[in-house]
């Protein structure tokens, strides 16, 4: 009942929002890592390496950006990696069978989106906690993909299609353009549309959001569908870049995407975070892995370092937030 700060006694908060401050710290951290790597390794600052970092970060970002919206609603989508694998295999088959990359791309996006929608239906209509619904979906998708591919590998796609993942435009890799476009769209959607505002409100208190007149179920459906569609997009980039598809390509994608979201400052409890933060998260993750490669640190150490960064980032976040309140 009684709060100590009854009247206007709490100090006025700074004109920068908490989100902006968090994003600024993250950008600073990313630059710091860059500076350290530039000192330690001569090849880090080469144009080729930087573009390589951005291209790698883009793949994680595509998956993680959709996931960010889910996490903002206090949900989780564990099926994104498996979704990428299924969508890639189906898109690849369509391209092989029809010879039309455009049709393949559409099928890949649609496949991802439908899987996301199914996740959304499980979470809203069936009221299964998202963690469990999407965990189950992960197995179902893996099962489908393994059965469908039956150990085969798809490879050899038209040169035009391969441009998407490995081509350049004005000296920059095409995935980097896509990254900027989707970073812009994602940020606009979350910050500058009423759906974005409603997603934050749902994450902060779903009961209050529903009783405030927000169509919670419809927004959740949208969010899971977007997450699935972004996995579909990632599958296209993947397919085009690797020029091949196998059933097991998704297995190493989900956990890094979650790591990027968490390093990016989005709270698993919902209502707090930004798509831009997730971009920085993906960047930090990629930078560290890149740096370890350049410094010839064994790849076996990478998971350990990733884990430490995630824990550190979340801990620092909680500390600064607690101070802000």
């Amino acid at each position, binding site marked *: 009942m009684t709060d*100590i*700060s009854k009247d206007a006694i709490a100090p006025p908060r700074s004109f920068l929002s908490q989100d902006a401050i968090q994003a600024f710290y993250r950008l600073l951290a990313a630059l710091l890592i860059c500076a350290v790597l530039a000192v330690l390794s001569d090849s880090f600052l080469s144009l080729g390496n930087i573009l390589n970092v951005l291209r790698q970060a883009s793949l994680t970002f595509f998956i993680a950006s959709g996931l960010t919206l889910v996490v903002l609603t206090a949900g989780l989508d564990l099926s994104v990696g498996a979704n990428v694998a299924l969508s890639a295999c189906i898109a690849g088959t369509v391209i092989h069978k029809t010879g039309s990359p455009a049709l393949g791309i559409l099928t890949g996006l649609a496949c991802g989106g439908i899987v996301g929608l199914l996740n959304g239906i499980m979470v809203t209509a069936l009221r299964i906690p998202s963690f469990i619904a999407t965990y189950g979906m992960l197995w179902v998708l893996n099962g489908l993909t393994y059965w469908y591919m039956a150990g085969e590998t798809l490879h050899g796609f038209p040169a035009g299609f391969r441009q998407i993942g490995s081509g350049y435009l004005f000296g920059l890799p095409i995935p980097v353009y896509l990254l900027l476009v989707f970073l812009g769209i994602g940020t606009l959607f979350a910050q500058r549309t*009423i759906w974005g505002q409603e997603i934050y409100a749902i994450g902060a208190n779903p009961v209050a959001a*529903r009783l405030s007149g927000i169509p919670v179920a419809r927004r959740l459906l949208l969010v899971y569908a977007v997450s699935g569609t972004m996995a579909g997009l990632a599958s296209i980039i993947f397919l085009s870049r690797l020029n091949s598809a196998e059933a097991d390509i998704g297995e190493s994608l989900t956990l890094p995407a979650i790591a990027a979201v968490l390093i990016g400052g989005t709270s698993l409890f919902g209502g707090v975070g930004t798509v831009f933060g997730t971009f920085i998260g993906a960047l930090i993750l990629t930078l560290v892995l890149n740096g370890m490669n350049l410094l010839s640190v064994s790849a076996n150490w990478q998971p350990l370092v990733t884990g430490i960064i995630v824990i550190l980032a979340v801990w620092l976040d909680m500390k600064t937030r607690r101070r802000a309140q």
Partner: protein
Amino acid sequence: MSTAALTADTSSPVPLLELRGISKEFPGVKALDDVSFAVFPGEVHMLLGENGAGKSSLMKVLCGAYRADAGEFYHEGEKVAINSTADAQKLGIAVIFQEFSLVPHLDIAQNIFLGREPKGRIPGTIDRRKILADATRVLGMIGFEIDPSTIVDKLGVAQQQMVEIAKAISQNARILVMDEPSAALSDRETELLFALIARLKADGVSIVYISHRMAEVFALGDRITVLRDGRRIDGVRPADVTPDQLVRMMVGRNVDMTYPRNFADEPGEVLLEVKGLSASTGISDINIEVRRGEIVGLCGLVGSGRSEVARAIFGADPVSAGEIIFDGKAMSGEPDLAARRGIALIPESRKSEGLALLRSVGDNLVVSALRKLFPSGLFDQRRAQRTSEGLIRQLRIATPGARQIVGLLSGGNQQKVVIGKWLAAGSKLFIFDEPTRGIDVGAKSEIFALIDRLVAEGAAALMISSEQVEICHVCDRAYVMREGRIAGHLARSELTEENIVRLGMHHA
């Protein structure tokens, strides 16, 4: 400031616990400023004050959750220190907060002895027989007859409170601090609580009782301490003051407790018509009509189905039969539809259902009006900011600004934010569920003035309240519920507390 005078005429001159000059400061606010007060054995000490007066802080200092910056504690005349909850427990101080600290999926016995379970023969197990026997004994001491193996989740609020009290008694509590214990109880349950308090008193247990209800202050209190702005204003005996004097002490100014209303001679057209409404939540055959310009009361005991009616109208619970006609058109659907059509629900538990506590005042104020403010779907932070600043001024919400976290505001100001979000949405029918619960006197009359203005401007209000005085003063007419049905309707001329109670009583 007459502690000495009060001590002189008490039969037991040594207080069980005495606080002298307690101060506690937080960044930017002096929560407690040189507060002294004494609790004597077997007395009920009422603690009065508006929200923000320092009652909660004092309570937290008492139970060791906060450490006082300055001041001294004396236990039976001996100087003691309360630096931790363990210290407080050793002195026999137990606090029963409004939000209970029970574990919902454990049974009563496990909750009473949580962390102190009797050990079974196999290491790591609990001696079930002993814990049940011990629990039965403790429950018997407070006269609460219930199977101790009942899961706490299945208990009502009143019963959970009993479990909390049993837990405190099992820890040999000598001083029981209770924060608005009757706030969530029905009249019958409150009577049982009062009987229990009398019983504890007779056993020499002292009660520090925080209350917002004038009636119980006079019914229960042996002594009253009034706090305002973190300072102790006075300590008095109930016989020596009138309610008006107490209110003046609490708010430091005269407050009209009659909530004057401009009753309209002729209500407007019918805005809401509920016909034969039933829902699986336990309400059946509800018929209600609300016209523009009216405040219609919905009374009855807690648990008689009042909130369920509100939720069914708003679409928050599924309806199994009947019709809801709003503004001339039938309506059925989710809350988003009801909100779009112009219905507002100000729920009973504003913290869990009305607000996103960690979001800003501004975010909460515009959340229901997004579609109206930004018809294109594009959100404009500056426009949102202007809208919320306008509402903050209009409703006189005490906040440093729209960016303040809403959870940091006092109860009254939080309630204004909940109302404000529906003002922004341009709602026509406001359904208030216990709008003044846990709100101080000053904010109460402000909120009633606001409701009066809303209906004068052509809106309508359906108001659920357990405070019959408020219903009688504020409503044009009222429906009384009993066991999920409308038991009767009271026109303005019949609207008295006696009639409400008579209609609402169980005939069992």
